[in-house]
């Protein structure tokens, strides 16, 4: 095939080879904490992250494998962040997994790496089938990860729900993609863009395919009304796995949304933006209002995730106004910044939950966090910083994420945007309540046990760094914002 250009997939190749090597090496590993496997995995992920960062800063947009794979700044940065997120998830999750007999084999690490590989393929796919391949690799690995704790009823139930609903959603997405293929005659995203932009294709057919694609994407993001799997799966899965499916895959879902809707179907923007507006309103309302009633922290965070995705959608729907794409870069980069800061904050919160869960009980209920400030001010502080960030209170990074998205929305200049902006801030006020409730439990309630929180040094260092980063990026968000802006501009420019 022409333009083989395998360098574009170099990190994926490294990742795949090392996954196979680690799976084999793991057969001889005997330690209950799987130290050798763990160290090898972390090294691999670090090398892959470094490779992605290098590629992001070095080359421009490069196509490979016969135009089926694209390597551009946005994709490479998202892949780098996804790699770092999986690294952090493994650091936080390993002690938890060891306590619950999930490390009897090395599958925890191999499956995480395979799901990361799936994310990579999704993020850099420039072809419907390649993206779908990546998506399936990601989700199948995730189904297996959720079911890893096989003697636990909740986990198995969550895995079944995830699998059935996920398969249905993938089917919807595939149906939409096949309609698009039928209409445009090509699987290549750039060619699809040209075909749709040419105006020769019947609009109704395109919109039919588009609806199914948007539904599939909405499911993967966890957007209402396709959100029903999120609370059950987040709550039922072992917490270490909840982090693995709540953190990094969101970056991949965002990338898939960007590739399909912006790189491929931007001429249909008016249509999918309208769909997103409805989805955003519903998801903000459903997510925030349902979270109030929750007493289980993981379930509350699931609903909070659903609501946060509403803001990402608001960023996405502000791109095209009055037929021109002037605000596109602004809007999509704010959505990207929001997603990245959301993943960072999620890592911090679940890190603290995993830390508390080590003491032989599941720290899933909100009341389990009572008096954490008296037991350990450091971890209560990290948790509080992350919660305030999700609520959008300055000076954490979450505030600037919300600001970017609101600014993109208001910049479009229409009255409906202003109304949506007011609605969004009112919903985030509702959201502030349940985040504050957890802070209240940590700081104002008396502790149920006086035990201090013991932690591995690695976890302590990474978790403190995580919390510090949420605060520091809130004080100096410029660097990450510019990175996202430049990445999106480059992605749109081609």
């Amino acid at each position, binding site marked *: 095939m022409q333009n083989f250009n395998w360098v574009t997939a170099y990190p994926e190749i490294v990742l795949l080879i090392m996954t196979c090597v680690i799976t084999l090496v793991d057969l001889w590993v005997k330690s209950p904490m799987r130290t050798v496997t763990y160290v090898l995995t972390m090294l691999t992920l670090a090398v892959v992250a470094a490779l992605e960062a290098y590629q992001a800063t070095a080359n421009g947009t490069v196509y490979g494998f016969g135009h089926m794979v694209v390597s551009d700044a946005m994709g490479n940065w998202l892949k780098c962040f996804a790699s770092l997120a999986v690294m952090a998830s493994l650091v936080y999750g390993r002690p938890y997994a060891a306590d619950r007999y999930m490390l009897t084999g090395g599958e925890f690490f191999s499956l995480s790496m395979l799901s990361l590989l799936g994310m990579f393929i999704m993020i850099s796919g420039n072809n419907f089938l390649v993206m779908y391949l990546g998506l399936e690799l990601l989700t199948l690995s995730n189904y297996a990860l959720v079911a890893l704790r096989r003697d636990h009823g909740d986990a198995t139930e969550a895995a079944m729900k995830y699998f059935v609903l996920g398969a249905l959603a993938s089917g919807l997405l595939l149906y939409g993609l096949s309609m698009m293929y039928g209409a445009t005659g090509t699987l290549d995203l750039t060619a699809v863009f040209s075909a749709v932009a040419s105006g020769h294709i019947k609009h109704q057919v395109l919109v039919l395919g588009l609806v199914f694609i948007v539904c599939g994407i909405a499911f993967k993001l966890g957007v209402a009304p396709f959100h029903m799997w999120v609370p059950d799966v987040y709550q039922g899965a072992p917490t270490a796995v909840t982090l693995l499916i709540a953190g990094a895959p969101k970056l991949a879902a965002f990338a898939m949304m960007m590739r399909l809707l912006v790189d491929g179907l931007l001429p249909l923007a008016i249509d999918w933006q309208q769909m997103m507006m409805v989805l955003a309103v519903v998801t903000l309302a459903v997510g925030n209002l349902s979270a109030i009633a929750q007493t289980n922290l993981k379930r509350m965070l699931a609903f909070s995730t659903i609501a946060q995705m509403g803001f990402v959608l608001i960023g996405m729907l502000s791109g095209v106004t009055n037929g021109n794409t002037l605000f596109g870069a602004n809007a999509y980069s704010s959505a990207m910044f929001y997603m990245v800061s959301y993943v960072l904050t999620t890592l911090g919160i679940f890190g603290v939950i995993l830390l508390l869960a080590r003491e032989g009980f599941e720290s899933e209920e909100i009341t389990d966090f009572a008096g954490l400030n008296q037991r350990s001010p450091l971890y209560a502080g990290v948790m509080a910083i992350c919660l305030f960030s999700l609520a959008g209170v*300055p000076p954490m990074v979450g505030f600037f994420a919300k600001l970017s998205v609101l600014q993109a929305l208001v910049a479009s200049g229409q009255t409906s945007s202003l109304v949506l902006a007011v609605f969004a801030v009112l919903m985030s006020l509702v959201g502030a309540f349940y985040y504050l409730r957890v802070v209240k439990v940590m700081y104002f309630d008396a502790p149920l046990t006086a035990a201090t929180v013991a932690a591995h040094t690695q976890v302590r260092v990474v978790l403190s760094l995580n919390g510090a980063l949420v605060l520091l990026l809130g004080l100096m968000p410029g660097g990450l914002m510019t990175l996202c802006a430049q990445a999106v501009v480059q992605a749109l420019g081609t």
Partner: protein
Amino acid sequence: MGILSLAIWTPIFFGVSLLAFGRDEHAKVVRWIALLGACISFLVTWPLYAEFDTTSAAMQFVESLPWVERFNMHYHLGLDGISLWFVLLTSFITVVVIIAGWEAIGERVNQYMGAFLILSGVMIGVFCALDGMLFYVFFEATLIPMYLIIGVWGGPDRIYAAFKFFLYTLLGSLLMLVALVYLYVASNGSFDLHEWQHLPLTAQKQSLLFFAFFAAFAVKVPMWPVHTWLPDVHVQAPTGGSAVLAAIMLKLGAYGFLRFSLPIAPDAALEWSWLMLALSLIAVVYVGLVAVVQQDMKKLVAYSSVAHMGFVTLGFFMFTPLGMSGGIVQMITHGFVSAAMFLCIGVLYDRMHSREIASYGGVVNTMPKFAAFAVLFAMANCGLPGTAGFVGEWMVILAAVKFNFWLGTLAASAMVFGAAYTLWMVKRVYFGPVTHDKVSQLVDINAREFFMLALLAVAVLWTGIYPKPFTDVMNVSVNHLLTHVFVSKIPQ
């Protein structure tokens, strides 16, 4: 590093250090370091007054650094005659409040002191910020330490109060956020306050912006009818928290009116001034009457705060130099007086663990030195000439009478209510025979409490007898603001 940055970050640095390294086993060291930090932060702010040029209306001590290039946000600080005294007030009150919490706070002392120091730095940031988003970040950042202070060290119903405080003020602020983002877009990508002040806007847009800002600032001031959070929060907060809340945090809202609503939407401000005057009068008269029937001392002083802040907004929206200067002076003096009142109640609460007026009677018999201070501050609260409370109220009432005779009469009548509720409380608590056994066993104030009350007494008397330093500083800036307000911004 510029002096304003120093003023902001010194207390924050001390606060963060205490949070990171302070331990309850070394509570004594923590307290002394906190006091040292507060004193250093106060000393750092003195050159602001010493080197201030009272003849210029321009911003002084200006610092400007790019902050977030993506949104053209700048770390832009500056002071003018309007904001100067608030910075000094903040750093002074922080010292007093640290001394006040010396013995009462025994648990997690480092977090208590750290929260107050960080809060102090952030509040100074609000008063110095000349970039819209920098102002908002500092404005909102005050919520977190205050929420924790109320919730951890507060009274029995503190959780309700903490949530009410946070969510109520957040609601208003979020609406202001939308307004700020709108201004950013309308001014083609700038958060600079100076640019916004000269941005032409249609009457309708100005009204919308005015009400968005009103939502945030009216809740903060607090104006009637969005004042209901204040009594609950003041009652439940610890003494130091109530003092800081009354003395400084309420002023953030009124300052916001001067920095944002008036310069950016002057036509709307003029158009809706009748509404603001009406709400201010209701606060002054109605809330004053509400204060008379209170049984809880802290709640009484809380309602009295709402009434005093009513004078402030009354002064602002008459748009005369005397009225506006009077409002600003009232803000400063109310800072001293209300802090002093809350600290006195705190002294009593530390001993008797009751805020009910009915629990007391004849305190002067067992605590004469303390009663002397308490009566002085009560007189200042009434507005006795020679004390701080008189200057601001007199200026505002004089301006009100000049503006509209009936307005002035109503405002002046409120001074009677002020005397009524304060003096009646003083009579029932301090004077008369000793009614309860516990009162007869009260011990008079120790050296620390004496020192803290003396500091405030000096401030109250000095402001009352010689208010010239205050008014001199703000004259030029106030006149400059008023000339700007009367120039219409509606594009022709």
